């Protein structure tokens, strides 16, 4: 496993997730059903998907999950025949979930470490929109200790505290020019922290039908004293001091999620999930620089509320194997006038599939593959006037190993 992680890191030095929307890759089981299943799966990943369901787990488990997300965007400026592509890179969202507590009793505790937001995109230094963005790596690692309690046999609640460690690594071209004609470069690197919570309820009517509701709060992450490195000609260093500091604030939105599950037959189960993401708190992204002459940047984002609807089915051909398929539609929070190359977002369609193989009493191996297509859209950014059409394909294979005890 260590070697695998190292290999992934070598392929992509930056650890990241997806863009203007959330990355729901916390559990490969759910991913295999298109992101649905918060009411259906009652396991250690409920710490994220449905904290209320956790106390209904009969056993304890630890799972480690990883993904290789390939985010491939293309851009064509309006009126131009040139198409720019992002560079190949893999970002590995991961998650670790673990539970503790006595079996078959009224409570359960656990901890989740996961990466619900983030993104990695590298357009290079030669593309049309290089003054808007060269590359961006955004990462949010949430650490969430959680407790869940059964109020009745059918009804349980749960909640957890969220501590976020966020980091940003952004590069963009600066329109000052060296003697060889190449442009300057700004590199911003910073980390910050924020806090929030995740609460939920889970109710099952009988062994068959269940409903889950959860609310994940916003987490405002403040970056202070980040490093701003400017590579510019000497004559421009008065404006862009090579070693500056910057501060910024990144609000990660709250989410309300509802999931239901019901059987279609003995061997086929279905789950449907819907979310509302309160992205409308993301009004602007400001970078304030320590250099007295360095112009601060204020990028209006004006995100709107977003949401998703996802559905999936699981088929149980044998005791040892579960097969899954699913799909979904994700409404973007990004308005047409505010599309930036770091979030070339639009409404997305998603298809996915996956399996779990019970290797023995103790170990489950789960695999998943999700494909998302961000629908093409022509956008004219009101701030930067970078105008053109974006489209994106996302491929996300994932794997997870669960140890039950």
């Amino acid at each position, binding site marked *: 496993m260590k070697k695998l992680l190292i290999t992934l890191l070598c392929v992509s030095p930056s650890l990241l997730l997806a863009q203007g929307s959330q990355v729901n890759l916390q559990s490969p089981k759910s991913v295999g059903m298109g992101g649905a299943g918060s009411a259906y799966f009652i396991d250690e990943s409920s710490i994220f998907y449905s904290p209320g369901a956790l106390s209904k787990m009969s056993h304890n488990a630890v799972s480690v999950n990883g993904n290789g997300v390939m985010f491939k965007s293309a*851009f064509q400026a309006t009126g131009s025949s040139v*198409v720019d592509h992002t560079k190949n890179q893999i970002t590995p969202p991961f998650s670790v979930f673990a539970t503790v507590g006595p079996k078959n009793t009224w409570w359960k505790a656990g901890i989740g470490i996961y990466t619900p937001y983030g993104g990695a995109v590298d357009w290079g230094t030669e593309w*049309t929109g290089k003054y808007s963005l060269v590359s961006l790596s955004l990462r949010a690692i949430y650490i969430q200790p959680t407790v869940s309690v059964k109020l009745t046999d059918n009804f349980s609640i749960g909640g957890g505290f969220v501590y976020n460690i966020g980091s940003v690594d952004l590069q963009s071209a600066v329109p000052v020019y060296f003697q060889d004609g190449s442009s300057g470069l700004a590199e911003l690197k910073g980390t910050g922290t924020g806090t929030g919570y995740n609460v939920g309820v889970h109710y099952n009517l009988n062994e068959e039908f269940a409903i889950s509701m959860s609310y994940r709060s916003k987490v405002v992450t403040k970056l202070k004293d980040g490093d701003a490195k400017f590579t510019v000609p*000497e*004559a421009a260093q008065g404006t862009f001091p090579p070693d500056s500091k910057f501060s910024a604030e990144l609000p990660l939105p709250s989410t309300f999620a509802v999931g239901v599950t019901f059987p279609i037959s003995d061997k086929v189960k279905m789950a449907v999930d819907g979310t509302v993401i309160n992205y409308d708190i993301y009004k602007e992204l400001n970078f304030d620089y320590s250099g007295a002459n360095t112009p601060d940047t204020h990028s209006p984002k004006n995100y709107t509320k977003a949401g998703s609807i996802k559905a999936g089915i699981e088929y149980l051909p044998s005791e040892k194997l579960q097969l899954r398929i699913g799909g979904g539609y994700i409404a973007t929070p990004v308005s047409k006038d505010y599309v930036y190359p770091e979030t070339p977002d639009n409404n997305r369609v998603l298809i996915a599939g996956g399996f779990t193989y019970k290797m023995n009493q103790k170990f489950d191996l789960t695999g998943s593959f999700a494909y998302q297509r961000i629908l*093409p859209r*022509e956008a004219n950014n009101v701030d930067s006037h970078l105008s053109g059409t974006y489209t994106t394909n996302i491929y996300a294979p994932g794997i997870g190993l669960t140890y039950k005890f």
Partner: protein
Amino acid sequence: MNRRNLYIGVALAILSITACKPSLDEFTPSAGTKADFSKYIAIGNSLSAGFADGGLYLDGQKVAFPLLISEQLQKVGGGEFKSPFFSEEQSNGSGYIRLKALVNGQPVTEQVTDKLAYRSASPKLLTKFTDPINNLGVPGMRMDMAFAPGIGTAAGNMYFERLLPEGTPPTMNYFTYSTSQNHTFFTFSLGNNDVLGYATNGAVNEGPTTTLTSTALFNTLLNNYVTTLTAKGQKGVLATIPDVTSVPYFTTVTRQALLAAVNAASTTKVTDIYIATKMGPRAATDQDFFVLPFSSAGLLGVPNANKIPYGLHPLNPVEDKYVLDTKEAAEVVARVNDFNKSIKSIAASKGLAVADVNAFLTAVKNGIRIDGLSVSAKYITGNGFSLDGIHLTPIGNALMANVFIEAINKTYGAQVPRLNISDYRGVKLP
């Protein structure tokens, strides 16, 4: 186990590279049916030639806006486009200025004097380039001068002389030269110097390069020119003439800036700069334009024989040639507007496209954003204008080419792709 995980990593890496890239096909280049781009020629002055930083040199020629237009026309089947490039050995051409340093934000420039292309120092003559060319832009060329004899001789314009073979009769004028190239398409941008020469000299007429051409003469000559250029039904683009007061040459050195500089070095507070006008000396206002070279001339405040400081007293005012005063500016702007009316009307009568360079540079004066980049007419940092404050940077040339391309697409039903501005640079800094 370790080896297997390595395989998985490698497999993922391969998948990453080979997984389908999204494709976009939002723009279908097309020449349309109304214009024939098989032989495009560019008629014009220094802007067409790629003049920049106070000189004509190879790097500037390579981003001359007609050449950029031709590269895009070639994407819809346009023909080859030749420019009279200086050789690599003589790549600095006429010589040009480069930025040596910024001292307290003030530019210090120096003249580039190596790799020049002169074959004679007096009179100044450049190494000839007499192969067939498409970019016929000649720095300094004016509408009135295009019809005058002798301009292509050793006593005339060295940039025109450079393009004519030895033994060309002195009667060969630019009009005849440029209209006998068997073109199928043209861009035409003459006329700037018919006002700019006068304006940059502070509206002081010191000879044929600094006279202000009359509107009547301009209209007649333009009509002749365009009638000849379209004699076989050829299509083309006529460019309007920029408002000369929209360029940094006139907007960088302001009264306020001069006063600030004087007061920074003086113990007694100075409140007025005195300028010579055709109506006698007076105190300058914020509506008077000082030309860019005045800042480096080092004259302000220097006492004369009577110990009167230059520019700070009515008895030793800033010379007329360094100032385009309010009245002169109004005269020049009115003339530009008259010329542009003439250009638009003749274009309309011949069914030709108009590239409204005037409207475009007026927009740049206030600052524009495109492709995520800000461009303005601010000297040096605005990135639109080169160090001479009149001619364009590569970014400025690319923007200009797009103005023409837009006009071509609109008038001739073509789909010529535009240039991406981020591919070009602004002012080089030390």
